[in-house]
């Protein structure tokens, strides 16, 4: 691919450039916010900022999880299905009278197991990540529909459903959850050696193996993290909409991947960060929020989103090439 050529032709962004790049994407977000503030009075109201933070939160967490996988040159198409399935599992457990803490724990554990299954398929069965996660996507939706019999399970636990609406220190709890995920994710990816192994495996898995890196364990780690993030988002979704429904979160995998790539992750692996996908997710959320506030026709909204994705990623490419 020509893209690959371009990416491997010269030195990739160095440390300083990566921070600069993060800043520039952040700058874009700020510019969007300022423009929307000028265009509509409603934008800068505390209420709307809260909404925006809530709306971007779930995609942001999914995108961070997805980024781990993409850095290893893999992909996880199942995350949307895992979100929907988790919402069903937690609703089902709560309806069966399982205590809240146990239901949450069990759902997260199920996320871990799905990740283990993916990595097993990739490492032991030699399946392409695309295929094994596509298969899980298909099957999980089926299992979820079977559990709910094609309908929804209401969640009556008040403590659980009010959580997503709550604020803490004036910031929506959903956004706090982004911080709760992003901070350890940052430490893991950028400061610990496991994060470095993710990059090494994505860059040249043979070299990593020869250096004594446990490549298989690294792949397990990446997929477990992705699925667990997705299960966590499933909990947040269940809390937010108060139901378990297996067909929810359809297409969120593509949104998560898009957020990650907008945030500078390379689908060829070995390039990515934690702050990038977060910014990517909130840029997408801002586009939607802004379009709603400006009462843009829903169809135009789609067209504009597509064009903006192209423009943003294009300028990102330009900047990176220029930075060399």
């Amino acid at each position, binding site marked *: 691919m020509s893209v690959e050529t371009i990416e491997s032709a010269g030195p990739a962004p160095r440390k300083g450039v990566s921070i600069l790049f993060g800043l520039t994407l952040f700058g874009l977000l700020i510019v969007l916010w300022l423009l929307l503030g000028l265009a509509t009075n409603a934008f800068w109201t505390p209420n*709307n900022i809260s909404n925006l933070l809530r709306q971007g939160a779930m995609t942001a967490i999914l995108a961070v999880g997805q980024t781990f996988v993409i850095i290893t040159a893999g992909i996880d198409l199942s995350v949307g299905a895992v979100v929907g399935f988790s919402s069903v599992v937690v609703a089902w457990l709560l309806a069966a009278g399982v205590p809240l803490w146990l239901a949450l724990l069990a759902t997260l554990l199920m996320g871990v197991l799905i990740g283990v299954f993916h990595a097993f398929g990739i490492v032991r069965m030699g399946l392409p990540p695309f295929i094994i996660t596509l298969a899980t996507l298909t099957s999980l939706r089926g299992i979820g529909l079977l559990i709910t019999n*094609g*309908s929804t399970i209401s969640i009556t636990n008040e403590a659980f459903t009010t959580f997503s609406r709550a604020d803490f220190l004036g910031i929506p709890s959903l956004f706090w959850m982004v911080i709760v995920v992003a901070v350890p994710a940052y430490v893991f990816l950028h400061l610990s050696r496991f994060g470095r192994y993710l990059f090494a495996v994505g860059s040249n898995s043979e070299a990593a193996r020869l250096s004594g890196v446990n490549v298989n364990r690294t792949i397990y780690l990446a997929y477990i993290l992705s699925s667990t993030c997705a299960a966590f988002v499933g909990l947040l979704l269940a809390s937010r909409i108060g139901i378990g*429904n297996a067909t*929810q979160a359809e297409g969120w995998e593509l949104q998560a991947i898009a957020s990650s790539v907008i945030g500078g992750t390379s689908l060829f692996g070995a390039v990515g960060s934690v702050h990038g996908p977060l910014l990517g997710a909130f840029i997408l959320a801002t586009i939607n929020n802004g379009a709603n506030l400006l009462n843009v026709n829903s169809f135009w909204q789609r067209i504009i989103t597509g064009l903006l994705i192209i423009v943003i990623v294009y300028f990102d490419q330009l900047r990176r090439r220029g930075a060399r």
Partner: protein
Amino acid sequence: QDVTIPIIVKDTTSFYWQIVLAGARAAGKDLGVNVPELGAQAESDINGQISILENAVAGAPAAVVIAPTEFKALGKPIDEAAKSVPIIGIDSAADSKAFSSFLTTDNVQGGRIAADGLAAAIKEATGKEEGEVAIITNLPGVGSLDQRREGFLDQIKTKYPGLKVVADKYADGQATTGLNIMTDLITANPNLVGVFASNLIMAQGVGQAIAENKLGDKIKVIGFDSDEKTVGFLKEGVLAGLVVQDPYRMGYDGVKTALAVSKGEKVEANVDTGANLVTKANMSEPKIDALLNPKVN
């Protein structure tokens, strides 16, 4: 059970169609008929439903009950199928004269009922049929949702000149998107007094937004179809009303009629199974209660 009468719904993954299937299942049990439950995986998947119809006909059943997912598109395939088996239509119409019998709710009428319900609720709250309203549609390109939207918009325009539609939004099939659109509408339109969420998933999402912002008194929401969650919202006053059809009866009577046709009996060509507005006031009436709590299993 030698007699097989498959029922083909629009979307097996939605609660509404599960009720239809439950009715059909019950009829199958009562009448001693084998009823395969078929359907596409999304209401917008026209090609999927055509394939399923083809497959069902290939199994040489006694008759087929189908809820056509799109008026024009299913016309020819149904004509074709009717050459070998009798076809009974339920829920929505199709561009075909080959139906042996037809049991429907008129979705355009459903939209009108929603408009009436919304106007009444607004009047009850503010004393006049005036203000800004919005409509949120679950997905574009879905026949029944289009018809509801059309009926609603037409009724507002012709009968309630005081109501102004300020937003006409489409979501992507996700409750969360409905929720997000609704919170943004609340921000962008502080004077909003009413919303029509034209299917179950949107009613769930929009209801959640109203509940989160505790605006049940100020913004009146009419939903379409019902489940435990939306009935709960209705009780709490989060939703002002729900337009409910009688899916259970459609499924049950569809199979029953199909059996009669296959035996050569004469049946009524058109049956309207009706749509009703449910509000907090009438929800405990026995007839409505039966609609709200169908025997799914």
